[in-house]
């Protein structure tokens, strides 16, 4: 049952509660504390507060944390474990052991432990309880015995022994120790470590502490110290103290130290006197013993050799200066033998590389016994003087070399202005050496001028004098124009020469030759020759105006543009050649250029020509700055653009005209696009037809806006079939142009959504052969379409009428004829049966009517039959045969009427026709010609042929009565028309003939003049053999 916190204390409490014997065990054995060791856990070593106290810790001790862990030494813990094992073998649960614990001062403390094994319910050991009792305190028994052993020996000497436990502070002083200081040991009681401190000189105790510390840290074999201590009589006496650590603790810390001290007062005082004397000597002196160990040294020596940081006393000279060579060692040896050696200046190099110059003397010194006790060296370190000398000399050389060789003029003067330096460059520039003259003569003598190269410098303007007097130079740039050397531009800088008290002792100036620089600058600014050339002979007019607007420079071309001479121009201000409307603007622009508001401008202007006209010009104005970026000139380039202007005007007019034409075509749509289809041109016609305005279209839309998508897609499909390529968007139109399908019918959509058909022609607009755009020209064909539709319906009507006509023909050819035939037949039968009635007037008229009816019907039949039956049955006919035939038939009639028939038809001409018609046609025309001959002339009729294309033209020419075509042309070939009061004229011939000709695919033309004659031209289809 666990109710308490799981801590070792509570655990222990539980054990005690369970076993009262444990309580008695603790009471009896745990006098100085107890521990609890967890067998399972190697770190589980717990100690109680009592043990802590025993070991010198308190609960607040910073090491208390460590206590919890391992206050016991490792080997002891191993021992515990071993014993634990033994117990288990022997089946006991108690044993005794000695353990070492670390106390608060870090040293071992042996403790007797009564241990009891604590077991769990199963009897397995789990804890070890230790009750502790401190074993009696240890004592330095061994040392005491040792000291005892030497006691008698030491007592016989004059040295005072002491012993000191460093760890515990325990001290043991021997009576002699006290005697050295004039005391008895009893007088100094209580004896402690503090006693020494109390009696020693505070100035020395620090040093002693330091030396002691070094020894304790094992750095020195002995502790050895000289110090002053207070004698009983109140004097400070010099004591030499020596000692050594003799025992150490187990951790290796020093424990016991033993030593002695003795009085060295007399010796020390003498040495100190010498040392003090030497130490404060004003020069570098060092005193050495025979082994060259330092006995005394002056501060100066330490300083000179840069060894102030070292305590050289007692050290060997050769250790301090390892670089000292054999030569010096030999000198030292000679001196030790009594020689005195000196040297005025000697140079030697230290190991660290620094150089030393010394003036030295080495001599021996003699002790009380008049023997050489060592040597005294006296040196004067003259290194810094030497160094200064060298530096000064180097500097001098350096400066002299520079001054001689650099191309910078250097001149200096003293406070009186008297020249003290005048270097080679300066001499060369001035062409003469320096002269001892007063500053007022400088300008004249040395040729000093202001930067303009004209004005001589006043005395106070001479840079050297300026610098001397005012500490600064106003004229940084001057010109040296000597009498016997080329002039130079120089830039001057300088400074005053001052002494330590800041008094001006003179001045120095440096002059830099900037002649070349100036020249280059000039060249750059004007590019003298090149610039002048380009300027003066430029194809464009060029003008430079200075900042006041005066003519600074202008070229011939400029004068040419204005038609002015230079003299005439000079009289004018630049604004006076401006167009009055532009004067103000030009002046403003000029001012802006001058003030730097604008850097340049390009504009078209008009300039006044001498002849009073204004010349259109293009001007570019820029600014020319000097080296300080100050505006110097405005530079204007003037280009005469009269010709361009004229051309531009022409072009504009042409364009205007062209646009007017395009605009005027209000019924024709004209739309221009760029190569990608963007509309660039859109005329009034397009506005009218499409309903979109120019503003809506140009630069914004593509023709696809007003095209029917499906229709364009159909075209694309068509193109794809032909070319195998698929086109999209505007490329479809491009491809149409490319494949020569410029013109086709399109349906366009108006803004209001209605559609209309156009015949649209697309062409590429080319510029130097390159396509730059496309132009579509379209006409609204709505009307055309409507007419076409109308024609189609008319054709349909005609066809049905034709059909009816055919029926009519049938009626005429059959039925009508049948009835007429019957009437004739019946009439003949009636007269046959009733002989004698032929003379009856009624019968005469009835006969006549019947005959007329028959004839009319036969004419009608002829005409009708021709049209409906013969077209397809044309055969090749020999024309000559038919003409001959007709002529033969008419020969009798012709002879009778005295008409000459001239037959010029060639034998080989064939025509396509129907034999009966051809007979009838030729007979008809020839007989007509005979019929309508002129009674007053020798009449003729001439038949000739010619061939045109697919036709044979048969010309039948007569010199007969002729026809008034003006009156009759339209009726000439009509039915039942006669134009002559001829008894044979029936008015049916030409009608039938014309119909026959046309039935055979031919045509007829007529030329005629009254009383001159008529020529009929019959066109028949030509059969090529």
């Amino acid at each position, binding site marked *: 049952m666990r109710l308490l916190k799981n801590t070792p204390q509570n655990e222990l409490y539980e054990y005690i509660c369970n076993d009262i014997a444990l309580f008695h065990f603790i009471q009896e054995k745990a006098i100085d504390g107890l521990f609890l060791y967890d067998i399972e856990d190697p770190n589980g070593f717990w100690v109680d507060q009592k043990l802590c106290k025993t070991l010198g810790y308190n609960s607040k001790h910073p090491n208390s944390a460590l206590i919890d862990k391992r206050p016991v030494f490792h080997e002891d813990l191993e021992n515990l474990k071993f014993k634990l094992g033994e117990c288990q073998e022997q089946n006991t649960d108690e044993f005794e052991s000695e353990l070492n614990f670390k106390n608060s001062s870090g040293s071992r403390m042996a403790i007797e432990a009564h241990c009891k094994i604590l077991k769990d319910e199963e009897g397995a050991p789990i804890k070890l309880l230790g009750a502790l009792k401190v074993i009696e305190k240890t004592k330095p028994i061994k040392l005491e015995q040792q000291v005892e052993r030497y006691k008698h020996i030491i007592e016989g000497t004059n040295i005072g022994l002491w012993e000191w436990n460093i760890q515990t502070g325990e001290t043991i002083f021997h009576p002699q120790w006290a005697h050295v200081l004039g005391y008895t040991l009893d007088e100094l009681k209580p004896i402690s470590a503090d006693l020494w401190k109390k009696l020693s000189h505070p100035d020395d105790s620090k040093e002693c502490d330091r030396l002691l510390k070094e020894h304790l840290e094992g750095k020195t074999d002995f502790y050895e110290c000289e110090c002053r201590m207070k004698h009983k009589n109140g004097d400070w006496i010099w004591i030499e103290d020596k000692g050594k650590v003799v025992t150490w603790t187990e951790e290796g810390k020093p424990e016991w130290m033993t030593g002695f001290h003795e009085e060295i007062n007399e010796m020390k005082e003498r040495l100190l006197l010498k040392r003090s004397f030497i130490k404060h000597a004003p020069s570098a002196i060092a005193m050495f013993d025979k082994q060259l160990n330092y006995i005394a040294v002056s501060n100066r020596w330490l300083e000179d050799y840069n060894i102030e940081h070292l305590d050289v006393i007692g050290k060997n000279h050769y250790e301090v200066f390892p670089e000292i060579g054999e030569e010096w060692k030999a000198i030292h040896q000679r001196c030790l033998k009594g020689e005195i050696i000196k040297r005025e200046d000697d140079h030697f190099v230290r190991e660290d590389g620094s150089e030393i110059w010394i003036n030295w003397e080495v001599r021996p010194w003699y002790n009380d016994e008049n023997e050489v006790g060592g040597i005294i060296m006296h040196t004067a370190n003259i290194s810094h003087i030497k160094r200064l000398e060298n530096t000064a000399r180097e500097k001098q050389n350096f400066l002299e070399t520079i001054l001689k060789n650099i191309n910078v003029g250097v001149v200096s003067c003293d406070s009186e202005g008297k020249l003290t330096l005048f270097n080679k460059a300066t001499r060369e520039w001035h062409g003469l050496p320096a002269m001892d003259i007063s500053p007022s003569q400088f300008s004249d003598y040395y040729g000093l001028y202001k930067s303009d190269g004209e004005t001589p410098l006043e005395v106070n303007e001479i840079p050297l004098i300026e610098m001397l007097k005012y500490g600064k130079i106003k004229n940084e740039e001057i010109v040296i124009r000597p009498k016997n050397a080329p002039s130079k531009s120089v830039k001057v800088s300088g400074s005053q020469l001052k002494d330590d008290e800041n008094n001006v002792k003179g001045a120095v100036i440096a002059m830099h030759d900037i002649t070349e620089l100036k020249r280059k600058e000039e060249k750059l600014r004007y590019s003298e020759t090149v610039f002048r050339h380009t300027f003066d002979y430029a194809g464009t007019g060029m003008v430079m105006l200075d900042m006041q607007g005066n003519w600074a420079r202008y070229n011939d071309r400029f004068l040419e543009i204005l038609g002015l001479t230079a003299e005439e121009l000079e009289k004018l201000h630049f604004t006076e050649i401006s167009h009055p409307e532009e004067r103000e603007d030009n002046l403003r622009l000029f001012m802006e250029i001058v003030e730097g508001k604008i850097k340049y401008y390009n504009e078209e202007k008009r300039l006044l020509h001498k002849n009073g006209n204004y010349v259109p010009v293009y001007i570019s104005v820029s600014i020319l700055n000097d080296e300080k970026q100050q505006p110097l000139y405005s530079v204007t380039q003037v280009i005469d653009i009269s010709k361009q202007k004229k051309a531009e005007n022409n072009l504009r007019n042409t364009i205007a005209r062209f646009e007017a034409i395009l605009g005027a075509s209000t019924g024709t749509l004209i739309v221009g696009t760029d190569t990608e289809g963007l509309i660039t041109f859109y005329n009034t016609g397009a506005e009218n037809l499409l309903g979109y305005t120019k503003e809506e279209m140009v630069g914004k839309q593509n023709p696809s806006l007003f095209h029917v998508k499906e229709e364009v897609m159909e075209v694309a499909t068509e193109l794809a079939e032909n070319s195998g390529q698929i086109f999209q968007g505007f490329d479809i139109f491009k491809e149409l142009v490319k494949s020569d399908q410029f013109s086709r019918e399109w349906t366009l959509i108006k803004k209001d959504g209605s559609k209309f058909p156009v015949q649209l022609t697309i062409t590429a607009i080319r510029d130097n052969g390159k396509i730059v755009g496309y132009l579509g020209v379209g006409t609204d064909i709505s009307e055309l379409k409507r007419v076409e539709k109308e024609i189609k319906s008319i054709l349909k009507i005609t066809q049905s009428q034709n059909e009816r006509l055919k029926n009519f023909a049938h009626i005429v050819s*059959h039925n009508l*004829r049948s009835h007429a035939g019957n009437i004739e037949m019946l009439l003949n039968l009636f007269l046959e049966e009733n002989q004698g009635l032929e003379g009856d007037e009624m019968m005469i008229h009835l006969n006549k009517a019947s005959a007329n009816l028959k004839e009319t019907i036969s004419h009608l039949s002829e005409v009708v039959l021709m049209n409906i039956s013969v077209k397809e049955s044309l055969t090749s006919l020999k024309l000559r045969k038919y003409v001959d035939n007709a002529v033969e038939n008419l020969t009798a009639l012709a002879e009778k009427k005295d008409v000459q028939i001239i037959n010029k038809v060639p034998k080989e001409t064939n025509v396509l026709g129907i034999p009966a018609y051809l007979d009838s046609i030729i007979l008809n025309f020839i007989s007509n010609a005979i019929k309508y001959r002129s009674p007053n002339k020798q009449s003729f009729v001439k038949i000739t042929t010619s061939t045109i294309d697919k036709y044979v033209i048969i010309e039948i020419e007569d010199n007969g009565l002729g026809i008034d075509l003006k009156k009759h042309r339209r009726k000439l070939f009509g039915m039942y028309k006669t134009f002559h009061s001829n008894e044979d004229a029936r008015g049916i011939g030409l009608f039938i003939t014309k119909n026959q000709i046309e039935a055979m695919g031919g045509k007829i033309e007529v030329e005629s003049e009254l009383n001159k004659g008529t020529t009929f031209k019959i066109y028949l289809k030509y059969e090529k053999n």
Partner: protein
Amino acid sequence: MKKIDLACIIDDDPVFVFGAKKIMELGNICNSFMVFPNGAEALNSLKPIISSKQKLPDFILLDINMPVMNGWDFLDEFIKIPCEKNITIYIVTSSLDPFDMEKAKSYSNVNNYLIKPINSNNLREKLMNEF
């Protein structure tokens, strides 16, 4: 010429039939007639006559344009009937169509092509060559 015993007129026009009979009677060409108003009736009547070897007409006046069966169709049927007697066939029509005239020439049995109207002199003249 010798007088024709029996003439056959095939025509749907009663005026023509009357006239034709009158012309032949007056011209003393023939006094006995068989008249049919179309090809079909003529064929129906003539066929049994031929097969029964009764008296056949010597001469046939045949119109072309007729209802039921026209002249051409009649001809096509009639010439198929084997007949020992050589019957003279004249086509009498008011058609001036050259097509009809040409077609008539293609029939060897057709002896002549007359265009209406006919008169006795004319007909007699033509028949002089046959009889």
